């Protein structure tokens, strides 16, 4: 779960990290009031879950409350990469002497938290990592022991931070680590962390991503979830306990298991790409594949108007394919889909399952034996319609 910049920074503040004293506005009038109270240069920043909002015109500097209001007018409601801006953060402008990068993330490779810090902040960290990896200091934290003071000293010394800033910066690293650990974050990033003209440190921009699997113990953060950028269909699927991700293609995929679901998508693309055909979605129906789940999943898939064909790929393991086939037929009767369907059942009692599908003789429903066949049949079905 991604937090907005303002949510991230307000969370940082709870852990003792200095941030600009800005506030959030949802109307130009609120922008005006906040800018008036700040009484100086302000920055109006769109709060949306995409990168590159600055280039898209979502970040503007204003020297007066009136100018801030005008920027608010412009940015609020703006469309940035398909997302509507509902909120802006109005921060006082910072007197920037130097920009630092500081982040803590899960290092999957070694299974430990990783602290990354660089005196060359402000820019895109992936770019810096590609061009000058030696400019980033990396320090792993023992996940059981936690962050130790000597590691703070190592980081500030290795990154070449001016000595006068060792203590305050060390406190910020510790605060960010506490924030990361206590919030079950996958990423807690400050970029830039600014050294001001007065020699103070200030977290000017921030990004926090919370581990979805830990939301059960992060009630406060979960309550602040902003789902405005989540497609309606994905939200419905999430609420129904189905993992669904909308894509651009024409073949709706209903599969049991995440790896097999990705593979099924890949096959539609493998055989359809030459004709511009590919998967319309990722969907993992999970273990049981009861009629209710199949019906719910089918409705979600069909809510995408691009879908021209639905491909079922179910491996019956513990579950028997004949039961799955009956479940699918029940769901069909309920949903009454109007696009062609390719059904491929494999594994336990696959033959019996395919026979059930075939004998039902529902128009527009085809059964396939192999995944290869199924993918090719689905591609052909889309081509026929087109």
């Amino acid at each position, binding site marked *: 779960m991604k937090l907005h910049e303002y949510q991230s920074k307000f969370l940082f503040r709870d852990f003792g990290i200095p941030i600009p004293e800005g506030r959030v506005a949802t109307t130009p009038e609120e922008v005006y009031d906040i800018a008036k109270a700040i009484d100086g240069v302000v920055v109006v920043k769109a709060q949306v879950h995409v990168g590159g909002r600055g280039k898209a015109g979502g970040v503007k500097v204003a020297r007066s409350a009136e100018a801030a209001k005008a920027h608010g007018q412009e940015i609020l409601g703006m469309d940035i990469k398909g997302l509507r801006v509902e909120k802006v953060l109005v921060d006082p402008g910072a007197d920037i002497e130097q920009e630092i990068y500081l982040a803590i993330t*899960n290092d*999957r*490779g070694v*299974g*430990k*938290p990783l602290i990354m810090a660089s005196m060359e902040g402000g820019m895109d960290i*992936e770019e810096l990592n590609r061009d000058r990896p030696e400019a980033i200091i990396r320090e792993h934290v*023992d*996940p*059981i022991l936690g962050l130790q003071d000597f590691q703070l000293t190592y980081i500030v010394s290795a990154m070449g931070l001016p000595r006068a800033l060792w203590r305050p910066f060390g406190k910020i690293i510790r605060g960010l680590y506490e924030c990361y*650990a206590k919030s*079950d974050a*996958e990423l807690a990033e400050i970029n830039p962390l600014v050294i001001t003209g007065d020699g103070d440190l200030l977290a000017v921009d921030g990004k926090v991503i919370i*581990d*979805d*699997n*830990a939301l*059960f*113990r992060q009630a406060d953060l979960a309550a602040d979830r902003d789902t405005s950028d989540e497609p309606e269909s994905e939200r419905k699927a999430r609420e129904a306990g189905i*993992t669904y*991700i909308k*894509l651009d293609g024409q073949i709706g995929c209903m*599969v*049991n*298991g*995440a*790896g*097999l*679901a*990705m*593979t099924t*998508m*890949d*096959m*539609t*693309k*493998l055989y359809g790409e030459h004709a511009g055909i*590919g*998967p319309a979605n*990722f969907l*993992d129906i999970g273990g049981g594949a009861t009629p209710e789940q199949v019906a719910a999943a089918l409705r979600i898939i069909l809510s995408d108007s691009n879908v021209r064909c639905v491909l079922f790929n179910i*491996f019956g*393991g*513990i579950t028997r394919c004949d039961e799955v086939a009956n479940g699918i037929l029940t769901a069909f009767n309920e949903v009454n889909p109007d696009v062609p369907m390719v059904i491929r059942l*494999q*594994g*336990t009692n696959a033959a019996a399952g395919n026979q059930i599908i075939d004998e039902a003789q529902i128009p527009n429903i085809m059964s396939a034996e*192999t*995944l*290869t066949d199924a993918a090719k049949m689905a591609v052909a079905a889309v081509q026929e319609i087109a």
Partner: protein
Amino acid sequence: MSILIDRNSKVLVQGITGRQGGFHAKLMMEYGTDVVGGVTPGKGGEWFEGKPVFDTMRIAVETTNADVSLITVPARFAADAIMEAADAGIRLVVCLTEHIPVSDMMKVVSFCARRGTRLIGPNCPGVMTPGQAKVGIIPAMVAIPGNVGVVSKSGTLTYEVGFAMKNRGIGISTIVGIGGDPVIGTTFVDVLEMFESDPATEKVALLGEIGGSAEIAAANYIRNAMTKPVAAFVAGRSAPPGKRMGHAGAIVDGGEGSADEKIQALEAAGARVASNPEEIPDLLM
């Protein structure tokens, strides 16, 4: 022979009185696995299908001499259950549970490493040595005994490939489902090392997917240290970046972890990479 488990493995099921735990414990016993008992705190003294249930792993291990444990408890109790097993001296812990927070897993993986406990998973289908034993949820019908080692991040895709192999008469030494979470106990490289030194394994099938760099590490190992041939498939070529494809770890992030980069690395290392998993049996012939 085989890796990780065989017919002599003595298995405890943590959460055996739960719905999922009990269901799979029974299937494991039917397969011939020596399930010696189970653990559910507060239900010590009860019985499950003629096997004793204990309150704690410590007492269960002391009583049964079990060396393997299967974790089937809910996510919020799973980290504690894994550490309990490791603390009790269990050699191999297989964790089915999905949705365990990554921060829990980082602690748990570190703890298991310190105790010398091998953890498979979490969020994995388990381990099966066909014809001998299975620990987890892999269906009995997906594999016959043979000489191909299978290691995979995913469940049903593995069943597909195993089943396709079986239909072509190709048998399996051991299937290891390592799971698709970002932080897992046992990686591709760990399992490849075991297969490389396992006399019962002559060839290996590796089923990867997008996200992380475990397949790149596997490619490096294959290039530098592996003598046995490897056939591979990487799922997720059509997955968009920045989206989590079902598995918590299946996400292309900041340009890293794409299927293409993994396929290239595996091919460069000498593995034969299928573009369609149904080709895997051909690559193993």
